[in-house]
């Protein structure tokens, strides 16, 4: 009996030993890639400064507030332009905000993204801005645009914030099937946008056709990642906090608010969220369209969406879609119109302004949603346009070769009143 127990014990130990050993597999991948260039977090978070006006080289989104025009310099900061006289806009300052793309202003507080952080800047004195708060890691995957011809190497956020990319050969060690590195593009949110991607915005404190930030009183909605919508409470100007995060199973791009509704432009459709509880947007309905970049604006009855080709969103059609949203839970397409390469758009009164890429600025009477194309009021074909802010008779337009402003108080006689050139033009 004793021997039997010993033998049984021996074999149990033997079987246990045979299964105790486990093989280990991993990969070493050597490839030419965009390799991150890091900046120390402390240096980065103390980098905000104000400087004298600088040349506009790569303008991004624009924002208008109380006579000032704020123009984003992609990834660098914000140009402050005194636009109290639209016929003579004057650059007065430049805010150096590393990695900046978007902005919104509530009262005297400017909210701007800075790579992975959201900063609040007191601009009571426009010439003496003061950073009063910083919400860290709101955009955790936000990085500048690299060389799109190459894949992206893995980012190690412990090393700091990614401020640039260098193309070189890199070897990465990783577990089999591990995420990150080696064609790492899917996890990144590029906050640097070039002319090709054309993430240009308009905004007048409330709405912008390509804005990624949208204010609703003290709440700031922002697209923190293409599939993550965050709500930031800014009531206490110096203590912002994220109060809600919503995961959306689409690639979000733009936000537009009208009253208590938030319209989200995604690459595959328009989403409508209710803001009855402004700190917690609630999904109401969606409208699907072909895959494309799609800024959206609305007057509450109709939503206008442009879809375009030739960008990272994909798509093969250039369209203006008019969507009836009178039944907010059941939006439906009224009509699609062919366009050349539509980007941003804006509405005021019965007017619809469309930046149709190389085909210029087109202005329509939108009274009849079924006959918009036949009601074209004006066409400025000799400019490459990206986005517009129509506001009380003045149209602020940003294009490849600068910032144009038009007076459209007399719709029969729309005139260009100024043109602020960008560097090199």
């Amino acid at each position, binding site marked *: 009996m004793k021997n039997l127990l010993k033998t049984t014990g021996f074999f149990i130990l033997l079987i246990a030993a*045979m299964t*105790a*050993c*486990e*093989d280990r597999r*991993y*990969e*070493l991948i050597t490839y*030419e890639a965009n390799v991150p260039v890091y900046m120390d977090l402390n240096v980065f978070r103390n980098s905000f400064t104000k400087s004298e006006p600088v040349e506009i080289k790569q303008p991004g989104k624009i924002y208008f507030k109380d006579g000032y025009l704020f123009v984003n310099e992609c990834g660098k900061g914000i140009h402050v332009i005194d636009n109290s006289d639209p016929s003579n806009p004057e650059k007065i300052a430049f805010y150096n905000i590393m990695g900046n793309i978007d902005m919104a202003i509530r009262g005297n507080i400017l909210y701007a993204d800075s790579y992975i952080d959201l900063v609040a800047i007191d601009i009571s004195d426009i010439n003496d801005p003061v950073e009063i708060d910083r919400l860290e890691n709101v955009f955790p995957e936000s990085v500048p645009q690299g060389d799109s011809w190459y894949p992206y190497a893995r980012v190690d956020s412990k090393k700091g914030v990614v401020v640039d990319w260098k193309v070189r050969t890199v070897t990465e060690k990783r577990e089999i099937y591990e995420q990150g590195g*080696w064609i790492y593009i899917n996890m990144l949110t590029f906050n640097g946008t070039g002319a090709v991607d054309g993430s240009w915005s308009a905004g007048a404190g409330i709405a912008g056709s390509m804005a990624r930030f949208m204010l609703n009183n003290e709440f700031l909605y922002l697209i923190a990642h293409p599939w993550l919508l965050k709500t930031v409470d800014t009531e206490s100007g110096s203590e912002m906090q994220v109060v809600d995060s919503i995961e959306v199973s689409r690639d979000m791009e733009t936000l537009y608010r009208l009253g208590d509704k938030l319209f989200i432009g995604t690459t595959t459709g328009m989403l409508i969220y209710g803001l009855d509880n402004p700190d917690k947007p609630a999904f109401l309905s969606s409208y699907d369209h072909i895959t494309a970049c799609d800024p959206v604006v609305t007057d509450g009855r109709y939503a206008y969406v442009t879809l375009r080709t030739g960008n990272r969103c994909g798509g093969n059609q250039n369209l203006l879609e008019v969507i009836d949203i009178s039944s907010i839970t059941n939006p439906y397409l009224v009509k699609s119109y062919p366009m050349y390469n539509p980007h941003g758009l804006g509405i005021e009164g019965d007017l619809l302004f469309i930046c149709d890429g190389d085909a210029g600025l087109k202005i329509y009477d939108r009274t009849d949603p079924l006959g918009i194309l036949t009601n074209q009021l004006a066409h400025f074909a000799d400019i490459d346009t990206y986005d517009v802010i129509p506001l009380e008779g003045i149209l602020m337009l940003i294009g490849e070769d600068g910032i144009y402003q038009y007076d459209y108080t007399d719709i029969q006689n729309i005139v260009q009143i100024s043109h602020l050139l960008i560097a090199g033009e």
Partner: protein
Amino acid sequence: MPKHVVFIAGLLLAIPVWSQLPAGPGTSTEKVERPGHGYFIHLSSSNLAGRSSNDEPNSLSIHLLSAYKTSKGLCFGAGSGIDHLEIPLLPFYAYLRYDPFKTKFSPYVWLKSGYAVSLAGDDQENTWYGSYTESKGGLLLNAGFGFVLYTWPNVGVNMGIGYRFQKVSRTYHEYWWGGGEEAVREIITEFNRFELQIGVIFR
């Protein structure tokens, strides 16, 4: 246990048993006497078992080594063989054994260390992304303990258990749609295996 292991175990056990059979009428069995030192050859077969992600939880290993035993029971030698761990391998290793007893039943501990060369040819694959494969062996480490049962003055059968480490890699050359250079993707497997060994020793 795989069939090949059972077969080889039976074969190796049969040799010393056969070697003890009487040579013929009138022949008596000689008393086993073991010299304290000298050369010996060790042929062994092992089953390498472990948890694996490549659906090969058991692998076969056949080794042949030659060594010299000192009068203090320390053995030095070198060997080679055939292993199969994901890819066929030709190992070359140094061998160290401590076998202090001179009895018929003699326990010992051993250590092997060396390098295994891949016997797998390059696997050329002309896919749309231009991938092809190279195989490479790597470091071999092996340690364990066992016993020899000398059933004949110059022949003994052994059994042992131990641990085997073997590194192998397969390298894929791929072309990324962007960039000008190819991407080299080396998948490295470090085998950690439990070894169950049986063998025969000729002196």
